[in-house]
């Protein structure tokens, strides 16, 4: 009897402390959204093609995890600046809307507009300005490597900010492409810094682990971007890295009026080194 009594007491106490329950939330003020047009397009004077990806967003509530967001391939996509206008055509091979920059030139310092219209009349709009050429810019001057006690090859990039300018609001991304023949090929998303966060001397390091003795090529990039490109990539990176039930969710940047996604601009510098 005593044994049963003890069991009862323990169950009772445990039940009190695990006294939580779950149910479908019904009385929450959550905006019920319809699917929205998502535009992702990054333009650069360095590129040979302007590419735009169009897709639908997928409402979270009422859909399943296995449902994949759909691409949009029947839209009218127009890019223009103050002088000329042209249309991006659907490329079935890439599943993107594209136009060659030999046909529609992207220039530094200019503002561009992107308009997307669907057959049913839905449309979204965005604009961005390509950063102007600057005499004062970041320069990457060294790519180096070392091996640590765990046999990892540490790649270190050193970059320097020259002629600090207060006149422009600049945004930077320090990225790299690492290639170890047959073993490794990846893009490092990189570090995002606004002008105020850039110091005169900056060090950025990344490590990779390589078993072979094959050559390692590192191509390091400094991307000078507009605010849209910078914020969008920064929030995407935060979203990729975040986890935890109590952590604040990452809000993804968008400059697409009437929709989601990003229309941003950039140009880049690069330095390539063979480090082994």
């Amino acid at each position: 009897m005593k044994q049963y009594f003890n069991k009862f007491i323990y169950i009772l106490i445990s039940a009190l402390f695990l006294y939580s329950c779950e149910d479908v939330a019904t009385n929450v003020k959550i905006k019920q959204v319809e699917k929205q047009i998502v535009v992702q397009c990054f333009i650069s004077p360095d590129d040979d093609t302007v590419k735009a990806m169009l897709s639908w967003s997928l409402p979270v509530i009422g859909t399943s995890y296995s449902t994949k967001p759909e691409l949009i391939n029947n839209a009218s996509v127009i890019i223009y600046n103050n002088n000329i206008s042209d249309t991006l055509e659907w490329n079935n091979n890439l599943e993107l809307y594209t136009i060659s920059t030999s046909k529609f030139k992207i220039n530094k310092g200019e503002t561009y507009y992107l308009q997307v219209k669907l057959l049913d009349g839905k449309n979204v709009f965005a604009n961005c300005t390509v950063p102007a050429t600057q005499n004062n810019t970041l320069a990457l001057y060294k790519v180096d490597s070392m091996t640590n006690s765990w046999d990892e090859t540490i790649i270190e990039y050193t970059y320097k900010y020259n002629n600090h300018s207060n006149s422009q609001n600049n945004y930077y991304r320090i990225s790299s492409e690492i290639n170890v023949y047959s073993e490794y090929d990846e893009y490092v998303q990189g570090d995002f810094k606004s002008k105020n966060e850039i110091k005169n001397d900056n060090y950025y390091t990344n490590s990779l682990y390589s078993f072979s003795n094959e050559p390692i090529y590192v191509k390091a990039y400094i991307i000078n971007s507009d605010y849209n490109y910078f914020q969008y990539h920064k929030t995407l990176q935060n979203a990729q890295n975040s986890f935890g039930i109590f952590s604040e969710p990452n809000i993804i940047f968008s400059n697409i009026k009437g929709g989601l996604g990003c229309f941003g601009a950039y140009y880049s510098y690069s330095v390539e080194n063979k480090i082994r």
Partner: protein
Amino acid sequence: MLKYKTFLLIFSFLQLPIFTIAQQIPKYTISGYVQEKGSKELLPGVSVYIPSIKNGTVTNSYGFYSITIPKDTFTIIFSYVGFKKKLFLINLNQDIELTAELELFNELNEIVITDKRNSISDKPQMSNIDIPIKQLKEIPAIMGEKDVFKVIQLLPGVQKGSEGQTGIYVRGGGPDQNLIILDDAPVYNAQHLFGFFSVFNGDALKSVELTKGGFPARFGGRLSSVIEMQMKDGNKEKTTGEFSIGAISSRGVIEGPIKKGKSSFLISARRTYFDILTQPIILLASEGTTRSGYYFYDFNAKCNFILTPKDRLFISGYFGKDNMYLRYKEKYYDDNKYISLEEKFNFYWGNRTATARWAHQLSNKLYLNTSAIYSNFTFGIDLNSKYDNEKFTLKYYSGISDLSIKSTVDIIPNTMHSIKSGILITRHFFTPSAIAIKNSELPESNYENKKGLETIETGIFTEDIMKIGKKIQLNTGLRISSFSVLKPSKTYINIEPRFSGNYIITPGLSSKLSWATMNQYLHLLSNTGIGLPTDLWVPVTDKVKPQRSHQIAAGFAKDFYDYGFSASIEGYYKLLENIITYKDGASFITVADEIDSEDTKSIDWQNNVTQGNGKSYGTEILLQKKEGKFTGWIGYTLSWTKVKFNEINFGKEFFPRHDRRHDASIVGIYELNKNITISATWVYGTGNAISLPQSEFIGIHHNPGQSGISSLKNYYINSLIVTEYGGKNSSRMAPYHRADISVMFKKQKKKGERTIELSVYNLYNRANPFFYYIGTSGYKGILGGDWGNSDSLRQLKQVSIFRLIPSLSYSFKFKN
């Protein structure tokens, strides 16, 4: 006399004109202490009133009063809520020292006379509520654990955090913006069990006072509120005590004289025993290898000594700790020998405070208090493991330690002025992160890093409660605060003007106005806002500026003397500057990582935080009845809080999580007869502002070296499904409401009084949201362990804790 004049010169530089008034009629001073009959506990806030001149004063925080009036014969009345009024006939022809003893109302049938001097309309202070300890003990509480913070949450202008949490959000401010003081010592993390209980044991408390605005100059260092608590001094006449057994903890208090009438002590303690009860189950389930559990305890002690008629010494301390522990021990046979494996893990946090206060009556108009104060908060993780002969230890901790000296002087030159001036110097020592690793097998990997930050905070203040004619009372004051960071050197100095006043429109009805500027030099870095011990206290630096608030409040206060209740309505507008939060994606882990880096310059939690501004405005209504068989209050708040950070939500203004449009509470306590007391509460609050997922889409990274956007076909690896929330905190949780009820049965026994309390938390079993997540229709839930089918439709699921919880507690108050 020389001493008296010296203090006047030092401390009352703003009030000099008041001493130049010519004195034609001889004036004398009545001064002394007011204390509880029997225990001789000093009583703060007691009204001392002389009807013939329609003037009076109140006792200060230490039970001292002084009143200077012309020579006369008159009646002086001492009155205090819950105590019988005491009258003395005085023939004042010389200075008199008079100590009054007030007796508690014990019998229900005794007539309780509401005294006008206890009214709220007569006080210049606004946005200030004192919580009677008796009510605190009678209001129903979850699992019978009486909690001062949960009662404060029931007051208008105070928002609660999540379900069951003790976090306090006053007029749009965060939980870090509350100055929580226990016997002059600040308490940095006032939470047990991850915020479900506060660290204050109601058995040891004498008074609790909340100030939300119109802050007197004596308070500084936080933006939004002051919660000032005093511990009981201890009974000087006889030894008494109380112990109680509740659902999750037991507690006891004992107090009594050290030397009868001259000195006394009080000791109180509380400990949870959930770990002890669950230990056999854990041992059984782990086949004797594991012991684990969680407990918290706290311990309060106080001694006080009457050294001479003019000197008193108080020594008090608090020590509390939360500990989660795991012990694992196993022995197994391998490789022809027995190998033992042992692991010990502790996750702990706790506060320690100590105060030594010397009260010295310099004259019948001057009262000096000098305190030495220590406060410490530590959060730590200890890991010890032993595998055969290999030993590994890891110790991590963070914390803050304060050492302070505080000196205040109360100057009461006449009935028109009551001045308080003083100085507080604090040396803060921050340890944002310290780590030590020892490995017997790999001594080269042993590592120790303890970096601290030392700062000095100073506050010099003076305030004067003055009466202008019969209609106007003002509390004007000035505080000069400074904060010096030693490395890299940086000093902030700020002037904080304070003002509050009332204008008596008709007897019992007054209008009030207040203004306060506050500066806060300490920041709490919190990811969650739910008061986890991992939240870090950090100081201002050359980069991170002090937080500042400006608050204006106005309102009306009305006393309904015939019915024994009071009503107030207040409107406020508060601006918050340089408030601090983590940048998106940063947490205490990233901060700790950076602190551990070798380069001192890169100890940069500063790079992980962002500062912004906020504003809060609203209206609060309080209808309160403090005396009689039926007591309680009705409170309602209508408010808006908005914040803006350049680096959060892309610089757009948003509602913080604790923004709550409507907040209402009803508290009722009814003494049915001398043996039975019934109490009930009902609370309602608009749901918190949160970010809930609305839609998803494929986000594509641009790859450096590639032309624009990647095709999904070729570079799917650079894409991810991202969630869109429609902006920061754009959704609202379901409204929160709940009713609690409690019945206390008291019985007088030979050796004391026995109380059995039966209470029900969440009487109508409301499922209030604790958090939400996205689940699917086939998903059995976080506790269910079934991850569902990926083809099932997604739903927003709500997790609720603390549904209907009945509890029973027993306490016995013994008398010697």
